């Protein structure tokens, strides 16, 4: 079952690269994404009751990975749909030709493959390799347009992420080292046949015996390594550049899923840490990183003049919120963080898509040049405004629900400092997002802009946007039973009871 999940995106990527006509590639892309989604349903439901393994326990899916997998397949499918319109338009304009189109779809599916690989790997070193692979593939996608800016963004991205993930490798080595000393002491293995384990499921079993100091040291390297990829604050500099220069569907996938996959790596190690002696260390570190991320993002959101970069900074804010939720550590904190992960993925994808249409209409990503978007684009403009409200944390929407859950957990736990700073930063972000997107949505549009949505040819992206908006509204009012069940069992894995 898990093997199928790994191979479908690979085969799709290969086919996209081999086929040489536009329609063919687009259909393969859609069918590949749909097949992945369908193939994933069965393991997701099966892993709900018991962890499933594949290929000598190299790969596995427990409730936590199936939750991430669900987010991935959903966003990946929507992105595949949106890509057809987006890239079709670029193709018609003559910005790209068939070779670039083939490359784009092949890399898109390789990117999906590497994230699937990361989510299902049981081996922490394989996880590291998968995250590294995402850097490779996405750097090519970030530099897709080969303009000065995109090459610069891609270079910054690959250098920063590679350096930090090298530290992550050191963290993986340290965890392996911690496991070897456990085996050495328990099973009296001789110095020569020294053997440790890298399998997360086995590490979890021996985590309470590991040297807590070594584990702490490893966690610092891990949080630096994967935190850069996730977009945690002091190591986020690549993120606004990469998000603003990548093609819009790729930005959505980077922000909606990739940052969460990297965050999964941090969560896995936090679980190990929670099993060892001192849990407050891990929680404090996550809280600090989370609050710093929120603070820095708030400052940059207020002064931003490019809406793609604004969305990138908002991603930093939201990954910070997730880190805070996990850092609080109680049931509702972790529950809120995981729910926030899904909500943020949906809302951010929605916003990237709708602002993508706005950008194509106005031919500019600068906030000051976009005025009266709801008049010019009745559907996507309105949905953009709703999405911005949701992103800022306005009540009837889903993001509010999860942020509220995390805040409630902070109060229950007595984390008053976290609570106060969270409220402060969230208020600043709210003001910033509302101000900028309000300006874009209302006001008088320039005279040279033709009103009305695009022609019927580009209906697919509009369908994707409307579907996402509907889900955003529903999740704000009501959490379906299966989602609640998945969240509950995932939280149990993280908190350990």
């Amino acid at each position, binding site marked *: 079952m898990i093997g199928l999940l790994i191979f479908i995106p690979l085969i799709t990527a290969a086919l996209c690269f081999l086929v040489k006509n536009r329609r063919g590639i687009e259909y393969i892309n859609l069918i590949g994404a749909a097949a992945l989604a369908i193939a994933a349903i069965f393991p997701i439901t099966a892993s709900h009751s018991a962890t499933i393994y594949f290929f000598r326990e190299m790969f596995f899916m427990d409730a936590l990975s199936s939750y991430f997998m669900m987010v991935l397949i959903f966003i990946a499918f929507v992105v595949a749909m949106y890509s057809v319109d987006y890239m079709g338009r670029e193709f018609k304009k003559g910005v790209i030709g068939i070779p670039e189109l083939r490359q784009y779809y092949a890399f898109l599916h390789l990117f999906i493959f590497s994230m699937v690989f990361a989510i299902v790997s049981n*081996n922490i*070193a*394989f996880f*590291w*390799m998968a995250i*590294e*692979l995402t*850097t*490779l593939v996405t*750097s*090519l996608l970030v*530099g897709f347009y*080969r*303009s*000065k*800016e995109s*090459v*610069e*963004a*891609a*270079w*910054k991205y*690959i*250098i920063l992420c*590679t*350096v930090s993930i*090298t*530290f992550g*490798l*050191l963290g993986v*080595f*340290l965890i*392996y*080292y911690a496991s*070897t*000393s456990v085996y*050495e002491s328990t099973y009296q293995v001789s*110095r*020569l046949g*020294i053997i*440790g384990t*890298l399998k997360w499921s086995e590490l979890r079993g021996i985590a309470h015996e590991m*040297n807590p*100091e*070594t584990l702490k*040291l490893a966690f610092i390297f891990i949080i630096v390594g994967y935190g850069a990829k996730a977009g945690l604050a002091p190591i986020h500099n690549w993120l*606004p*550049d990469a998000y*603003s*220069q990548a093609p819009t569907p790729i930005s959505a996938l980077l922000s909606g899923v990739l940052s969460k996959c990297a965050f999964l790596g941090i969560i896995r190690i936090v679980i190990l840490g929670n099993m060892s002696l001192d849990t407050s260390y891990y929680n404090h570190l996550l809280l600090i990183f989370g609050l710093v991320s929120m603070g820095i993002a708030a400052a*940059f959101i207020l*002064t*931003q*003049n490019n809406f793609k*970069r604004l969305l990138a900074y908002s991603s930093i804010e939201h990954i910070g919120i997730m880190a805070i939720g996990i850092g609080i550590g109680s049931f509702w904190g972790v529950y809120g963080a995981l729910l926030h992960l899904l909500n943020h993925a949906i809302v951010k994808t929605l916003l990237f898509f709708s602002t993508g249409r706005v950008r194509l209409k106005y031919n500019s990503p600068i906030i000051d040049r976009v005025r009266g978007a709801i008049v010019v684009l009745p559907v996507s403009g309105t949905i953009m405004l709703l999405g911005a409200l949701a992103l800022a944390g306005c009540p009837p929407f889903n993001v509010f629900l999860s942020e509220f859950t995390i805040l409630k957990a902070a109060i229950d736990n007595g984390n008053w400092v976290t609570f106060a700073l969270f409220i402060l930063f969230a208020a600043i972000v709210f003001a910033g997002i509302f101000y900028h997107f309000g300006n874009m949505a209302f006001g008088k549009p320039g005279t040279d802009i033709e009103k009305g949505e695009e022609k019927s040819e580009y209906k697919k992206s509009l369908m994707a946007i409307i579907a996402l908006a509907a889900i955003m509204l529903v999740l704000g009012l009501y959490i379906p039973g299966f989602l609640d069940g998945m969240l509950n069992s995932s939280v149990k894995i993280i908190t350990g009871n």
Partner: protein
Amino acid sequence: MKDWMDLLYVMDFVSIGILITAISINSLSQIEAWIKAYMINSWLLSLLIFFVAVKNPEHHLYVASTLTFASKGVLLPFFLKSIVKQMKKVQVVETYLSTSLSLIISGIIIAIVYVSLGKGIFVTGFSSFVLKISVAVILIGLFIMITRRSAIAQILGLLFMENGVFLAGFSLTFGMPSIVELGVVFDLLMIVIIMGVFMVQIKQKFSSDAADMDQLTNLKG
């Protein structure tokens, strides 16, 4: 061979060689000399793993030694040289700091590492001495990345860091399982190739002699 190795402290000498090749790039200005220094560094790393393998007869260590030699000692330097040739002019690495100052800073880095790891957070490992050296190499690699302007210098700094991480891995646990090492090395190769592609693109787009980081200032805020 084992006795002979212990008697002459071969392993210590080899690891000091790794440290010295890392420090030496601070004083080199020609990029080709940098690549040579990296090549020697990788050879020494591979030699060290080979000696560890002789001491503790395990197959995967021989595999790791050969792999390191083939990928980092032969393939990567060859590839980097071809990129430098493609950039045509013989490159001089420009630095923000003078040679003597960067040498002094490298010395300070090593001293800090030796003092802070002196008490030994680590219980075992085949040599805590090697661990100190590996951390020092990682930090020197990082220092080089920060203070040099050209793109290829950043790639080399990264490669030195990677060598340091590998050395740390070996000093802690006698290496990882072979499949993991294979994967990591493969990732490294791919990264350097892709960085090479971007470097050529930077040179084309910004139309200068060297791929210089000072020009990458379009994206801010």
